[in-house]
């Protein structure tokens, strides 16, 4: 059983470990950020790639150590997240547990809370989004609820920050054992009680009874908990499994219903008794935004709306960033002055100016340094990392866009609207979230496939998601496209995205057909909660955006920096480890020349071929590094200038862009493909698919483009 314990923190103040749980969408991340002041440490839960967020806060001389548990609906152990959450709770690591309930839908979201109370007594029940109850016509008598549940209840709002101090006080009170329950909550399961008692007798003999409260264990076993059964089998306690299964079947025979169904019903009944007279709804008016749901759920209008919405958001982002595509349109209409103005004062244009300015200043400052150090600082650091940092505004804008879609609640509506279309290629609306995330970064996107209920569908997504161009590739696409004049650049950008999505769809379709032939595939299905649509909350949007900008800056400062440094070193030194007289005599060039023949079909001269091959090899590690490496090779400030200096032809640029869009995005993506699929075969398949498709599309693009230009 859980023992009572408080640790002495590093600072000498007492540390209180606080677990935070809640159903999806209740506002857990928001509250967690507020409680911890966003000083958060992110790691993985042991042995799995589910993220574990931890944060700290001092309060009245105590050091509160918050641990964010995964957002789950209950403790059925049907998902990895549910297992993680409950194992954490029974581990005794937490002194206090806070369970969040969405004030705007208390009846449903409290289901997790009472399940938590069945398991862990030192719990505080927190109603989130209290600023919204008024508008929803909901009144909640918190004090009466606290009396009925026997644990403290508090209402908070992350928007107005009311209730936060009170919550912090309560955490300390509960940790010190001043208030709260001594024992877990006991819910009556009616007709199942005799069965539960019998299972308790059986479970007593099991070694698992040391890890869990006995009654809870019995209830879960009767519900057919897969994880517990697996653990029993692993420990060689097969006889216990057999006896439990016998009782389970008896229940099914007698009541003609499965125990888990009866238990869920009894829990909800218990809940409705608990909230009777405590949660009062004055009026249940349909949401003001219900029309939005109707639009997105419409079979034709819905998908068109979603696609138009996403495309126009991207165009807005592009325009703010580089003036594209309006600069080109203006230019072609004969307003080249206006076009230039737009380009110069776009965020990207301003950033470029800043970097040119900075490199000028640094150039002056390092004038007296030894030659190699000058080269390292100017070519390696400023050239390489600077070429990547030009794209900071772009990263920021895409992150902002995704944050708005996410926080406003539009994102799941888009999922609903595209479900039918996606079903045709064997994936469900659940895939929309990973796909949109992919436009930012493939790594979290592949991790987000975990919410996909079908295993084969998930595996197909893991293999194909990397075809969706992430921001890193967008950076390269833009750098390449900008080297083209006029409408060519619009065409290449459009072609990149169309080509990428088309490839994603065709490959998915092909894998789906294969799976169906093998008899693996199920029809894609959808079961998704739609949180209320609301105006985005600026604070939340900022947090989400800043997180991904920070991620990019960190990456630029570490991985991209290191890769660029290695790329620089390989180009600076010759195989005899003395400075190379010519770039083409460097170690890097030697390696690149091995691969350069692969680019023969594109009719490049030798220099063009090995330099591009070198950039592409470096790009295998981190795609952003392609631009830095090209700038380094050509000795220019930006990759676009590099491409112009090196003199690639228009069809070559188009073909190379397609290759970059479709081949392996980065080493991190491969690592996560492996960790999520747990299969070497799947990872190799992904690499093979991407390389071969990218290569074929590159050559096809070159051949076709050469015909027209």
């Amino acid at each position, binding site marked *: 059983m859980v023992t009572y314990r408080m640790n002495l923190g590093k600072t000498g103040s007492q540390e209180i470990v606080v677990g935070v749980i809640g159903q999806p969408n209740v506002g857990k991340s928001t509250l967690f950020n507020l409680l911890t002041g966003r000083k958060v440490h992110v790691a993985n839960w042991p042995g799995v790639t589910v993220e574990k967020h931890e944060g700290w806060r001092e309060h009245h001389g105590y050091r509160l150590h918050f641990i964010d548990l995964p957002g789950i*609906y*209950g403790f*059925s152990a*049907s998902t990895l997240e549910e297992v993680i959450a409950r194992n954490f709770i029974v581990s005794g690591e937490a002194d206090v547990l806070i369970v969040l309930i969405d004030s*705007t*839908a*208390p*009846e*449903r979201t409290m*289901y997790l809370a009472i399940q938590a109370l069945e398991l862990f007594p030192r719990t505080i029940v927190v109603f989130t989004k209290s600023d919204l109850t008024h508008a929803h016509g909901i009144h909640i008598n918190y004090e009466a609820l606290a009396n009925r549940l026997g644990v403290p209840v508090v209402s908070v709002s992350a928007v107005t920050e009311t209730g936060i101090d009170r919550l912090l006080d309560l955490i300390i009170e509960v940790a010190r054992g001043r208030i709260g329950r001594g024992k877990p909550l006991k819910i009556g399961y009616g007709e199942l009680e005799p069965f539960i008692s019998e299972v308790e007798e059986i479970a007593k003999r099991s070694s698992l009874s040391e890890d869990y409260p006995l009654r809870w264990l019995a209830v879960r076993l009767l519900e057919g908990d897969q994880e517990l059964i697996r653990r029993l089998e692993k420990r060689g306690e097969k006889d216990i499994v057999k006896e439990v299964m016998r009782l389970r079947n008896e229940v099914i025979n007698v009541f003609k*219903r*499965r125990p*888990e*169904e009866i238990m*869920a*019903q009894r829990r*909800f009944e218990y809940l409705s008794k608990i909230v009777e007279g405590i949660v009062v709804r004055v009026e249940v008016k349909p*949401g003001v935004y*219900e029309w939005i*749901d*109707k639009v997105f*759920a*419409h*079979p034709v209008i*819905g998908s068109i709306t979603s696609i138009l919405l996403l495309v126009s958001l991207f165009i807005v982002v592009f325009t703010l960033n580089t003036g594209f595509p309006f600069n080109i349109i203006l230019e072609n209409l004969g307003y080249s002055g206006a076009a230039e103005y737009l380009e110069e004062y776009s965020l990207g244009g301003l950033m470029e100016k800043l970097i040119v300015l900075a490199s000028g200043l640094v150039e002056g400052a390092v004038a007296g340094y030894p030659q190699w150090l000058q080269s390292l600082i100017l070519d390696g650091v400023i050239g390489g990392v600077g070429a990547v940092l030009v794209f900071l505004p772009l990263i920021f804008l895409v992150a902002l866009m995704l944050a708005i879609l996410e926080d406003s609640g539009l994102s*799941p509506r888009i*999922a*609903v609207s595209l*479900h*039918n279309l996606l079903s045709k290629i064997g994936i*469900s*609306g659940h895939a929309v979230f990973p796909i949109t995330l992919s436009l930012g970064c493939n790594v979290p996107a592949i991790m987000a496939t975990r919410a996909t*209920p079908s295993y084969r569908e998930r595996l197909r997504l893991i293999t194909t998601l990397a075809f969706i161009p992430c921001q890193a590739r967008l950076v390269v696409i833009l750098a390449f496209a900008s080297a083209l004049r006029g409408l060519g650049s619009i065409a290449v950008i459009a072609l990149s995205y169309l080509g990428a999505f088309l490839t994603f769809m065709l490959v998915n379709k092909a894998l789906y057909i294969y799976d169906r032939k093998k008899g693996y595939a199920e*029809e*894609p*299905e*959808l*079961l*998704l*909660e*739609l949180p*209320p649509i609301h105006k985005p909350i600026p604070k939340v949007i900022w947090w989400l955006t800043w997180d991904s900008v920070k991620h990019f800056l960190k990456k630029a400062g570490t991985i991209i920096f290191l890769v660029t440094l290695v790329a620089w070193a390989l180009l600076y030194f010759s195989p005899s480890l003395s400075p190379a007289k010519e770039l083409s005599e460097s170690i890097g060039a030697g390696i690149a020349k091995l691969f350069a023949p692969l680019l023969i079909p594109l009719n490049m001269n030798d220099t063009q071929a090995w330099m591009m091959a070198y950039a592409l090899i470096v790009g295998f590690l981190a795609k952003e590094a392609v631009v830095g490496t090209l700038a380094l090779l050509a000795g220019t400030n930006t990759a676009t200038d590099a491409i112009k200096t090196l003199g690639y032809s228009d069809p070559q640029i188009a073909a190379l862009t397609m290759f970059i869009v479709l081949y392996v995005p980065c080493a991190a993506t491969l690592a996560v493909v492996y960790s999520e699929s747990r299969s070497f075969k799947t990872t190799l398949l992904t690499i093979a698919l991407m390389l071969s498709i990218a290569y074929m599309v590159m050559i096809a693009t070159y051949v076709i483009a050469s015909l027209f230009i």
Partner: protein
Amino acid sequence: MAARPWTTLEALPPGSRARVVNINAPGRWSYRLLQMGFIPGAIIEIVVNNGVGPILVRIMGITISLGRGIARRILVEPI
């Protein structure tokens, strides 16, 4: 009261209400449905049903979208 004929969720028109009789979905789905409040006796309101594509329902104050295949597994009694 005469028992109304039972039907499945995906057959109900928008605006109508029904009481859940039982669900008959494979394991993983059925756990999730139960956790989301689709328990016998729960009242569901159909928000959107266009005859094709996912349907939208309200249950326990929350809007949920269901694919037609899942919805077909939920037996209900119209009210």
